[in-house]
């Protein structure tokens, strides 16, 4: 597995503790929703960076009041056809104002990266020999979008509006 974060190939600094019986003493950890609920106080006392893994049937509204505790939220794609996490990502970014790392894990395909990026993911756990090259291909595939989403990119409607303003200005 290789981790692409904000367009760079990086080392994963979180230890995946989801499913472990004992939480490690030190270091950044990624925990499950059950672990977060059960060991919330202990996890906050550790004063380490904290990550939360949400499965595709775990709606982020469960933790909407807690998002500021997390440095990382990882959303699982159990199969590439399961598209629930696209909605979760937008809700986390746009409604619950999560600003930390939002990571796509599980069955993440090259062709889906630009959709994921648009809904607010900024890191991707890729099963690939050439993760950086794949990311670059995927990220450069499209330059026009119609929908306003969490990534804040200008939509075609806005681009049209600006083009018309420019034309109007230069005509004056």
């Amino acid at each position, binding site marked *: 597995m290789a981790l692409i974060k904000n367009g760079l190939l990086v080392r994963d600094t979180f230890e995946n503790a989801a499913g472990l019986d004992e939480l490690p003493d030190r270091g950044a950890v990624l925990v499950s929703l059950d672990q977060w609920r059960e060991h919330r106080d202990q996890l906050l006392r550790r004063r380490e960076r904290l990550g939360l893994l949400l499965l595709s049937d775990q709606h982020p509204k469960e933790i909407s009041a807690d998002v500021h505790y997390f440095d990382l939220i990882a959303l699982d794609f159990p199969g590439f*056809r399961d*598209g629930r996490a696209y909605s979760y990502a937008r809700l986390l970014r746009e409604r619950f104002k999560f600003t930390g790392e939002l990571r796509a894990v599980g069955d993440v395909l090259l062709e889906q990266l*630009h959709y994921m990026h648009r809904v607010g993911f900024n890191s991707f756990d890729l099963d690939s020999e050439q993760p950086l090259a794949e990311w670059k291909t995927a990220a450069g595939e499209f330059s026009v979008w119609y929908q306003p989403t969490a990534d804040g990119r200008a939509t075609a409607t806005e681009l049209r509006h600006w083009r018309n303003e420019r034309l109007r200005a230069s005509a004056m």
Partner: protein
Amino acid sequence: MYRYDEFDQELVSERVEQFGRQVTRRLNGELNEDQFKPLRLMNGLYLQLHAYMLRINVPYGCLSSRQLRALAHIARVYDKGFGHFTTRQNLQFNWIKLEDVPDALAALAEVEMHCIQSSGNCIRNITSDQYAGRASDEIEDPRVFCEIIRQWYTLHPEFAYLPRKFKIAVTGSPNDRAAVAVHDIGLRMHVNSAGEPGFEVIVGGGQGRTPHIGKTIRDWLPVEQLLSYLEAILRVYNLYGRRDNIYKARIKILVNHLGINEFRRQVHEEWEFIKDGSLNIPHEEINRINAYFAPPAYEKLDDLGPELDGLGETNDEFQAWMRSNVAEHKVAGYAIVNLSLKGPDRPPGDLTADQMDAVADLADHYSFGELRVNHRQNLVFVDVKQSELKELWGKLKSLGLATPNIGHVTDMICCPGLDYCALANARSIPIAEKITERFEGLKRLHAIGDLTINISGCVNACGHHHVGNIGILGVDKKGKEYYQFTLGGSSDQNASLGDRTGPGFSADEAAGAVETIVNTYLDVRQNGEPFLDAYRRVGMAPFKEALYGAD
């Protein structure tokens, strides 16, 4: 008609390049069929019984003559010289080779066409009234909103992997020609008490193995809030639609499981957050799109009135054509002309490359270079001068496209069935052919009047059999093809699902059963009522008796 600007064009070109790269990776073995499948399905490429099938979007059924010529070119160069118009106002090629697909897509992109989201579990090509913008019973032109919705759903990042496919249809007229009640979302324009146009939103309609008439989730929605409302519905569906069983994954199952009231509550809870946000459609955007659909340069003409009837005095066939294939236009002196793709020589909906070129020429000459595809698999010229009807009729007749049967028994909807389709249980095209043979006589056809027959080759219902006045469903019974009949289906503003008659009929008996049903109708008919009205009045009993005998 809408024209791409540099942004729309850029997006489609980028998609062509992306798919070209994916096909290359498939052809050189970097991708196996399993990995390639979801990618080709996002581009309308299916693997069928004999070959790949490419489905091309015709957004809300609007086509220019230039686009039709490009389709003719593709049919000739990359297919076997014909294409097939579908009930979703799309066009399919049944014999495409994988290595040719990127070139075919590039040829399409040159004329502002593509296959994006024409298959896969995403929002599919939006459909509408084939008379949009021309019908005299219309409140406003629905194409404006179709185009706004089309842009919104194209490569929508949140809704590319829905539980199942998703189909939206729009009508701007109280007389529903777009079958909106049997779509995942149907939008029907109404004017509120203040005189403002808005949409009734219908949700959870659909056909397939569990047919449902959609339910109204909102009586009237201001047009500016259309996209935020759609987004709220789609989000609830994306999150809570079933993903464990593809037969239970459509939104109709969710709506029925929750009940329309609970579903509405969930949608409105979601909508509250987004209804006044960046999805609101600014008036300047509505005006911008509206300008594309400005009426063409009509001449100032008078309706021909009695002279129009006089045109055909000497010719039965022309008069029959005038009655069934020509519809009223909202502008004086003009008419709407339906081209029947249900002649005796080709399967329903098929058009050859040569016919496509010829139709494109006729569209240029007689109808401002535009045409429409309707959901009954016919083509439409929407702006024909009444004074040129007779001339046009002659030319269409020589092309085999003037069969005077629109809305009548032989204007059947028919899916590809076992002749092409990998999912089929039975053939459907030969059944349509046999019915056509039986009802060929013009007088008889017109004496029977308005009657729709819809045929599907399996429970997936691509041929809309549930909503045909007579529905025919092909099933497999111990290795033999059988045909089950339903009566009383309709997809108009009073949509209803047909009722089963009883046991099915063999392929040899099917056309005879249709004749029995039609004869029974003629027996019970009062005051020239159409088949559907007669059926709704007398019910199943006389038909059952005629088909199976008294018990």
